[in-house]
């Protein structure tokens, strides 16, 4: 990999970010091209993105990247001119070229595993492009049209603001000119000498690669004035004419400024759009996530200090009742309090990203996977605008990949099978996000074959994960939840697609690790829906505060289905030890948290537990016995730190408004280690455990009952 010598790491960073943007745009657009067919607008947009990418690759001197970019641009140009019609081969070739471009990008970012192989892709693109026109074989390729990107527009604006003159000379070489590359090089060097060259078509990389047409289109800032500029340019040999096009940061130059040869010229509206986008772009800054996290932490400390100041203020107020300063202290504290709250809200907002950023990455994956399995899948995404903390987004990518792969590989039937079952040949796979009572729900829903619980049971027994006896007693819902059994593979035979050793148990533990939950809904022949419920942010967790002995603990509300008061007639003890609660015909094991977390001196005895918090994790449901309950509240999640290590049943700690430290319960691990599947009497027909849809109100309602 060779780059231009003077690339700074900052340049590279800017390039990488820009490249990622363009690649993402191309990914989306090319898939849209396949789905919706070609439109002038779309092709234009794709062409522009490919061109920008090629241009910036050339700027940093990445020849290989520019070469692949060029090959795809040639193909796109033929599509745009109507010489070719969009087909799968072309789309696949374009997508492969994106892979290579992305591989280059990753190589630059130091993330690459292996050297990208460009030749195969260039060959593929050329094959898709078909035989080049005669003209093309004789003539070198056309240089890309002048690209006026954000940087250029910003520089123009800056120069104008500073009162400097910006010119756009278009130099046309004589038809007889035999040394176009040399002349273009001369023009560029002259322009660079007498001013600052902002942009030029051909670019210096193109000139180096002999990609030079008859015109040289440039934007230059200079103090010499238009006449002197024209004179200098005319003095170069073979220069036929020099025209000047008005430059402004507003509308782009007129179409007729472009000669026929510069066929890739963006049309007026697109250039306008570009410049608008540039102006919008200048209103935002990129910020390192770590810096944002730091800010959030510091604001968290401010919140605590604010509370302390408030407390001290109240003490002072009672001590010095008549002091005037006390009043202004409380006023100031009040104002501080308001500002800090707003700061906290804003910083939370700044960490939010629309889930679309991760959804978009799946479109391509689903397409390729369906194609490779010979299945027809229509992939629909909904609710892309739903915002969620970026740390959550990072943690759901892998689980979602797994769920989507599973849906396509195992859930969706082959076209023949679907037809035989009277279903449309094209299956629907829907990925949607929506708000649900303070959580974000993400649903992966297919209209495939559904989960065959009998097959699932057999597989679990065959793998020695459960006994025949235990599976035969399972309810349908319990059986469905067997998909989360560690070490299970549902596929008849391990396929390339899903046989990767990562099971649904890993998906579930990943989701639970971020205080989320996963539920399954499936019907044979109709399809399967998996719903992830995720916290809006990992920085805080909506929790129920409970007292166990003399200590308070926070129970994340996402696990809580309801709270009840324990009364003797609902409580039975089996084997002299295990306590069971009967709630609406369902028998749930009771775990008294006093037993799990023996508190220090003064801890209440386990028998004193009067409330039970019913929690769900996966298919398991247990009741946690506690002394008392308080209102649910949002708590800030902090780590206990490496010194404390892993503490059984505790996932972290939080600082309350009064400065106390409260430990946050790791409910999933409590349920999974201490809990079992709901015990049942043969006579008891149990209700399937399922998450209550309105957790907060369910809890609030019970709190009222309890009070």
């Amino acid at each position, binding site marked *: 990999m060779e780059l231009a010598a003077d690339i700074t790491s900052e340049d590279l960073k800017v390039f990488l970010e820009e490249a990622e943007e363009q690649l993402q745009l191309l990914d989306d657009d090319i898939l849209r091209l396949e789905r919706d067919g070609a439109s002038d607008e779309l092709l234009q947009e794709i062409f522009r993105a490919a061109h920008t990418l090629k241009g910036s690759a050339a700027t940093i001197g990445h020849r290989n990247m520019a070469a692949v970019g060029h090959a795809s641009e040639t193909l796109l140009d033929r599509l745009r001119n109507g010489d070719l019609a969009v087909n799968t081969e072309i789309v696949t070739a374009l997508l492969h070229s994106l892979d290579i471009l992305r591989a280059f990008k990753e190589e630059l970012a130091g993330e690459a595993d292996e050297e990208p192989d460009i030749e195969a892709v260039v060959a593929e693109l050329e094959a898709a492009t078909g035989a080049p026109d005669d003209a093309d074989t004789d003539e070198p390729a056309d240089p890309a049209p002048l690209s006026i990107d954000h940087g250029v527009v910003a520089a123009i604006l800056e120069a104008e603001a500073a009162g400097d003159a910006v010119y756009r000379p278009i130099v046309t070489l004589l038809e007889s000119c035999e040394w176009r590359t040399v002349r273009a090089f001369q023009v560029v060097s002259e322009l660079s000498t007498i001013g600052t060259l902002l942009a030029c078509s051909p670019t210096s990389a193109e000139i180096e690669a002999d990609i030079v047409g008859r015109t040289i289109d440039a934007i230059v800032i200079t103090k010499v004035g238009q006449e002197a500029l024209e004179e200098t340019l005319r003095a170069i040999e073979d220069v036929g004419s020099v025209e000047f096009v008005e430059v402004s940061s507003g509308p782009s130059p007129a179409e007729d400024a472009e000669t026929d040869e510069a066929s890739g010229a963006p049309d007026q509206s697109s250039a306008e759009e570009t410049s608008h986008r540039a102006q919008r772009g200048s209103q935002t800054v990129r910020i390192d996530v770590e810096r944002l996290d730091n800010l959030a932490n510091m604001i968290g400390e401010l919140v605590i200090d604010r509370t302390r100041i408030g407390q001290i203020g109240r003490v002072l107020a009672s001590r010095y009742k008549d002091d005037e300063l006390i009043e202004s202290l409380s006023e100031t504290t009040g104002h501080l309090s308001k500002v800090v709250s707003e700061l906290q809200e804003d910083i939370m907002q700044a960490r939010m990203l629309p889930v679309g950023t991760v959804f978009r990455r799946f479109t391509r994956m689903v397409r390729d996977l369906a194609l490779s399995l010979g299945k027809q899948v229509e992939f629909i995404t909904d609710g892309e605008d739903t915002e969620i903390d970026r740390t959550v987004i990072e943690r759901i990518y892998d689980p979602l990949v797994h769920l989507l792969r599973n849906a396509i590989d195992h859930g969706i039937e082959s076209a023949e099978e679907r037809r035989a079952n009277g279903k449309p040949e094209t299956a629907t796979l829907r990925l949607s996000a929506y708000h649900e009572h303070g959580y974000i729900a993400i649903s992966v829903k297919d209209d495939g074959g559904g989960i065959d619980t009998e097959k699932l049971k057999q597989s679990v027994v065959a793998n020695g994960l459960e006994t025949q006896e235990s599976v035969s007693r399972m309810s349908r819902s319990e059986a469905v939840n067997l998909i989360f059994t560690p070490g299970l593979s549902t596929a008849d035979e391990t396929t390339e697609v899903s046989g990767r050793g990562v099971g649904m148990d890993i998906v579930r533990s990943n989701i639970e690790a971020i205080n989320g939950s996963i539920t399954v809904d499936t019907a044979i022949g109709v399809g399967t829906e998996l719903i992830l419920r995720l916290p809006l942010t990992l920085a805080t967790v909506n929790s129920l505060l409970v007292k166990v002995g003399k200590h308070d603990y926070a129970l994340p509300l996402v696990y809580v289905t309801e709270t009840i008061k324990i009364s003797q007639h609902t409580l039975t003890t089996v084997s002299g030890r295990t306590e069971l609660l009967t709630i609406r015909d369902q028998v749930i094991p009771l775990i008294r948290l006093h037993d799990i977390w023996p508190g220090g001196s003064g801890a209440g005895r386990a028998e004193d537990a009067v409330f039970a918090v019913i929690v769900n994790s996966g298919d398991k449901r247990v009741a946690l016995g506690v002394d008392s309950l308080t209102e649910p509240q949002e708590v800030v999640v902090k780590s206990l730190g490496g*010194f404390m290590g892993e503490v059984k049943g505790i996932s972290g700690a939080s600082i309350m408004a009064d400065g106390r430290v409260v430990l946050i319960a790791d409910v999933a691990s409590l349920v999974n280690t201490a809990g079992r599947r709901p015990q049942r009497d043969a006579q008891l027909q149990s209700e399937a455990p399922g998450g209550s849809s309105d957790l907060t109100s369910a809890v609030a309602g019970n709190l009222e009952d309890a009070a």
Partner: protein
Amino acid sequence: MAETNTKARAEQQLVVFDLAQEAYGVDIGTVREIIRMQDVTSVPHRPDYVSGVINLRGRITPVVDLRKRFDLPQTEIARDSRIVVVDIDGQDIGMIVDAVTEVLRISADQIEPPSNMIAAGGSDYIVGIAKLESQLVLLLDLERVLTTVSAEGSPELLAAAA
């Protein structure tokens, strides 16, 4: 950790604190701050000498009771009791001590290697003895005092600390 290596420097500043009538010293460079006793939230399933965690200006900070750590007789938390917060490999850890008495400047030649005669608590964790005119100050190897806690408490930390 260079700061705790008492021999490496010609002169050293020590924070001196009392624990069961003995004077202990730790290098001032490792001490982040000294705070009054405050409510400690106990954390279950930790060794007895890990008192729990406190809120140190918004940071969750673990606290170790040094009397328990050194198997010394327990006393009530008194007015002079302090939490000495030290930085061990980038993590703040608090140590409950009877009282913080002074900051001393000593030179390397005042420090002698620990002898077997020492019968004070925590003798396993003493790296040297500073002999002063009026008293002896036992120099603590904080790494051992505090990270072995973690090693016993959680095997995971050994890997993290390595």
